[in-house]
């Protein structure tokens, strides 16, 4: 059909012919040009990765406000790919976390390429206060636990006023363990007992120290840990931390349980509050805290019977109760192993359980409808008798994290200890083995953690607790281990 006046030109043609005309027209349209409305700016910003968003905070005040806005942060978090943080183990403070975003491209790299695990984030040091004191005193007194090495500042980009200090810090004092991750915030704990000490957002570098509880263990008061957890209550928009201890007293030559201590701290407040719950739980250990829908879930390992089940605590109603578990998974009592072969977590709003208790298989279960026991679905059953490494191999320390939404033909990342990751894509190519390079640590630890821009300043709401920033404080403290750059490469079998 013949067009009336102007046939639609092909794009290239129009650009060539009308170039001069366009430029003047663009100048005339300058007002539009300068002012993309903020709702469109938001749509553009939502497509950017976190690194670019933080750079964009510097563009102008309005952009900083848009990016810091809690609703934007929440929307952006939902678009961030499922990620894992990797850190080295082995007698180190292990304060650096290397991010692995689990996007398919990362695993299509082939055997000749290396993918750098970036960006790198830092955790605070557990005993930073005494470290700083030691740093201040360094010219005068020899220091017991810390050796300091001063290096000339050759780096042009640093603050200029101070020197980079290479510090040999001792993990005994400074290492943090991790309780769990929730909404991009990490709950850090004492690596020995497991009690929560700090909440941090590694992306923004912010962290806060949790208040000390009156019931905390001390040199005189020995408590036995039962379980810990960190979660988010969507109805009140608050983050809560839980600690559960058993207090024993000596009677004759044995010890008797005096009481169980169950306490909650609302992050941002100064005290821990006691909650009355069924003390039955005191005979168990609670592991793999996972927060979903305002409820913290654990796998409960009962002391005497070795029974396993799922226990949950609703942050709103403050009730502790059992939660439906996948059929048969917890019935296998025989494996009383130290490496609990069952783990639990949450991915994209669904609870999952990874069962490695069978000699031959690794099984992944997903609860497709929250709270409905029948909806536990076996998503994968991976036969591990012939492993990806081409020979029959028991999967050591095999932990399992789902990477994609299960309906998308999901893939799993299995960690086969000793710095080896096994990527399992059932639809495409089965197994691929990846090795982590760049560190002389024998082992790595993997923490499921999807980064977000949630600001602790919004969480804390008020002046009670000080929000500290790791980059402002420890900008010139660098541990030797921080020189390592980790990368991933595929290992052909």
């Amino acid at each position, binding site marked *: 059909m013949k067009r009336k006046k102007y046939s639609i030109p092909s794009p290239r043609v129009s650009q060539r012919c009308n170039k001069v005309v366009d430029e003047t027209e663009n100048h005339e349209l300058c007002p539009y040009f300068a002012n993309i409305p903020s709702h469109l700016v938001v749509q553009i910003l939502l497509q950017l990765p976190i*690194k670019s968003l933080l*750079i964009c905070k510097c563009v*102008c005040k309005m952009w900083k406000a848009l990016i810091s806005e809690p609703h934007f942060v929440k929307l952006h978090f939902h678009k961030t790919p499922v990620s894992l943080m990797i850190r080295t183990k082995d007698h180190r403070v292990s304060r650096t976390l290397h991010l692995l975003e689990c996007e398919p491209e990362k695993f299509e790299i082939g055997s000749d390429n290396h993918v750098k695990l970036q960006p790198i984030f830092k955790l605070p040091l557990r005993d930073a206060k005494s470290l700083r004191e030691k740093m201040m005193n360094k010219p005068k007194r020899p220091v017991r636990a810390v050796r300091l090495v001063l290096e000339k500042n050759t780096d042009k980009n640093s603050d200029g006023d101070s020197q980079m200090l290479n510090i040999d810090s001792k993990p005994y004092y400074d290492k943090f363990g991790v309780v769990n991750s929730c909404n991009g915030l990490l709950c850090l704990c004492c690596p020995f007992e497991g009690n929560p000490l700090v909440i941090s957002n590694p992306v923004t570098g912010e962290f806060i120290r949790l208040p000390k509880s009156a019931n905390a263990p001390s040199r005189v008061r020995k408590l036995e840990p039962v379980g810990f957890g960190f979660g988010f209550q969507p109805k009140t928009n608050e983050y809560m931390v839980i600690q559960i201890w058993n207090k024993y007293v000596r009677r004759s030559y044995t010890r008797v349980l005096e009481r169980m201590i169950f306490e909650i701290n609302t992050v941002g407040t100064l005290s821990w509050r006691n909650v009355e719950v069924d003390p039955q739980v005191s005979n168990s250990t609670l592991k793999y805290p996972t927060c979903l829908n305002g409820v913290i879930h654990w796998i409960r390992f009962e002391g005497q019977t070795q029974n396993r089940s799922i226990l949950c605590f609703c942050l709103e109603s403050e009730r502790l109760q059992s939660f439906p578990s996948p059929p048969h998974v917890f019935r296998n009592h025989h494996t009383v192993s130290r490496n609990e072969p069952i783990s639990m977590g949450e991915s994209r709003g669904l609870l999952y359980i990874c069962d490695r208790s069978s000699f031959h298989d690794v099984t992944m279960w997903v609860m497709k409808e929250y709270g409905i026991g029948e909806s536990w679905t076996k998503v994968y059953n991976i036969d591990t008798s012939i492993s990806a490494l081409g020979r029959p191999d028991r999967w050591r320390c095999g932990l399992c994290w789902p990477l994609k939404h299960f309906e998308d033909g999901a893939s799993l990342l299995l960690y086969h200890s000793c710095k080896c990751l096994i990527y399992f894509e059932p639809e495409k190519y089965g197994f691929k083995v990846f090795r982590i390079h760049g560190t002389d640590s024998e082992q790595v630890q993997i923490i499921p953690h999807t980064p977000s821009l949630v600001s602790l300043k919004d969480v804390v709401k008020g002046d009670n607790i000080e929000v500290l920033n790791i980059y402002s404080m420890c900008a010139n403290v660098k541990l030797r281990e921080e020189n390592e750059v980790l990368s991933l490469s595929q290992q052909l079998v």
Partner: protein
Amino acid sequence: MAEEKSQASSSKMLTLKASDGVLFEVELNIAKEMKTVQAYIDDCEDIETIPIPNVLGKHLAIVIEYIKKTNEEYDAEFEKQWNMDDLQLLLLAANYLNISGLQECLCKAIAKRIENKSPEYVRKVFNIENDHSPEEEAKLRKEYKWAFEGVDKD
């Protein structure tokens, strides 16, 4: 040639008039993808020429072409040919005409082009003035030090 009024409404033609006077004849079902135009038609059924005062002819041409061929492949190629100015004007056009698919596509394309670029570059692209004080900016750069490492050269 006069517009044909055929029996089937899908082949009814409509004329769209861009801000610089350029006219485009499009089928009704194509025009309806632009929700703004749809609203116009709903209001006055007999309209034959619809003015699009905020959009230049060259951009309207691109928008119409996009609507005609919406498949995944085309999207990927689509963005590469346009410069930043055009992308922004197209975004404004897609926003005004209320075509959500095109809007999302353009936002992704613009985001790709500013990803990992310095704040100076981004300001230049969007013609934004820096209203941070030097202290504020220095503080942000220090707090988010890791984000500023490895930024692409402008």
